[in-house]
């Protein structure tokens, strides 16, 4: 993935130029054809991403009934609103802790998978990927039923170990943990598979050389595995941060933002305010608040990836 990344971010490589005028004419024709070939892509990006994004900015400057220009009123109201700041805090908490847990669990499992004999790996990998293949909106229903206040089967298991019943979705911190848990459950296999691929691309000779030098397993991890995986770790974390930060389905199915709006994230809050309560401008303003955070994540990780690529080149 880092390779295709760089391909996307740096210049796409065409055939080597340097032949004579015939090739230049060809190049001119070529660029027209190439433009035509990318036209559908441009239409999708401009028409369905860039334009809506700009339109969202416009919407957010209207008043509730959308018949008057209201300037920054929606943003002012949000900034003054305690609930909104809870949403900001919860979104960050949710994204950062879930991504961290997913990365650690994924890393651990990838390592374990890498250790066992190759012929058994496929079977284990298949089973471990299942959470990630089921559409999350549907698997969350299963979790919801396991969390149910009256019929919780998780509490039933806990009761065997004499642990008192847990109010999974009722108490704010438990609700936060429950939501994060489902997200980690759903996302960890993705990290696992990415890291496994990265592990497999580390040349075996490096480890053998290290073993002969008497390196401990920690040293091997620290000085060989991690540096070799740095790029894929950054990229995976970046994607996961963005997707988790913008998550909608898990919170929508499990808690709908409750108790007391303490589990709302940007997406569910924007939905609640914008579409359910019929205040589209305010909803647009809420979702626009996601942009700066996303841009910051993207900037840092891309910078890191590019720098390392330059170093390696």
């Amino acid at each position, binding site marked *: 993935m880092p390779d295709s990344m760089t391909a*996307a971010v740096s210049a*796409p490589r065409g055939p080597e130029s340097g032949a004579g005028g015939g090739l230049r004419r060809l190049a001119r024709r*070529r660029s027209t054809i190439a433009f035509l070939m990318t036209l559908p892509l441009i239409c999708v990006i401009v028409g369905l991403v860039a334009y*809506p994004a700009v339109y969202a900015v416009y919407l957010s400057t209207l008043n509730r009934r959308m018949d008057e220009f209201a300037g920054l009123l929606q943003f002012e109201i949000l900034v003054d609103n305690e609930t909104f700041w809870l949403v900001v805090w919860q979104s960050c908490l949710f994204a950062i802790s879930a991504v961290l847990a997913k990365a650690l669990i994924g890393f651990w499992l990838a390592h374990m998978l890498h250790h066992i004999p190759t012929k058994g790996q496929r079977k284990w*990998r298949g089973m471990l990927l299942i*959470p990630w*293949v089921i559409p999350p909106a549907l698997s969350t*229903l299963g979790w919801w039923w396991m969390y149910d206040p009256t019929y919780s089967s998780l509490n039933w298991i806990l009761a065997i170990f004499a642990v008192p019943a847990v109010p999974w979705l009722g108490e704010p911190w438990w609700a936060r943990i429950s939501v994060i848990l489902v997200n980690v459950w759903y996302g960890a296999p993705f990290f696992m598979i990415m890291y496994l691929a990265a592990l497999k691309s580390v040349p075996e000779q490096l480890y053998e050389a290290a073993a002969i030098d*008497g390196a401990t397993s920690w040293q091997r991890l620290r000085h060989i595995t991690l540096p070799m995986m740095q790029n894929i770790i950054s990229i995976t974390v970046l994607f996961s941060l963005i*997707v988790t930060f913008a998550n909608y389905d898990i919170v929508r199915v499990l808690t709908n933002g409750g108790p007391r709006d303490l589990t709302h994230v940007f997406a569910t809050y924007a939905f609640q305010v914008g579409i359910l309560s019929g205040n589209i401008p305010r909803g647009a303003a809420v979702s626009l608040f996601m942009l700066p955070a996303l841009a910051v994540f993207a900037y840092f990780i891309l910078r890191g990836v590019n720098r390392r690529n330059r170093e390696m080149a």
Partner: protein
Amino acid sequence: MNLAANIHGSLRAERRWALIIAYVSLCAAVVIFLLPPVYMLITSLKTNAEMSNLQGNPWLVRSPTLEHYGTILGNPLFLTFFWNSIKVTVLTVIVTMVISVLAAFALARMRFWGSQALATGVFLTYLVPDTLLFIPLYQIVGGLGLLNSTWGLVLVYPTLTVPFCTWIMIGYFASIPKELDEAALIDGATWSQMLLKIFIPVALPGIIAATIFAFTVSWAAFVYPTAFITTPDQMPLTIGVVSTLVRGDTFAWGQIMAGALLAALPPVVVYAFLMDYYIAGLTAGATKG
């Protein structure tokens, strides 16, 4: 000699321990990872009375029944959901693959004015989540008269799939040796011949991976259908199961679980057969070093 034997001996001991730890962790992970789907299966096999009974182990089925599956499959609405999902997904996958293969080929192989900016643009697009776009898109789709229509979904789903698929395909095309197209060009092949005769066959694994990706994403999409589809006859499965089967103020859990499992079946089946391609596609860059 001695030293080498020692190293070997300790290595073997270390390996054995590592193996034990590995299997223990994997077993634990499998149990936890499969807990919810298994419980969904268990629930879907219980009768309503058994489900609402608090006595006894909720993880066992005492009188298994297929009535929920029967009800669900006999429900024309559910079959409509299934059909809508298939329709939307197939159309989205076709549209996505055409757009992204063409664009990826052009971006990876043909330089033109703005191509670099566009390549970066594709990447940045992926950073704009659907949850940011659904409110303006709601207005736009509404303005086009496509709210409550599967066509509206076919229109907006490419925003979820195209950037990533283009990205996978750029990676694949970039990894094809340049000598190949130079030779083809010298032989007087046109661009379209080059794409169809050389690149698509060589990049087939990547295309399969991108197709599976597009399929999985459009099958699982949730935000857009929640926002844009409200009449049951136009709903795809995800939202149909969540909003229509969750009925009443006492839920039909058996039916919900049966429906959810049936809805999860197609991606699971696809991935069971094509897992290796899928994984290869997702990790394209990494495996290609």
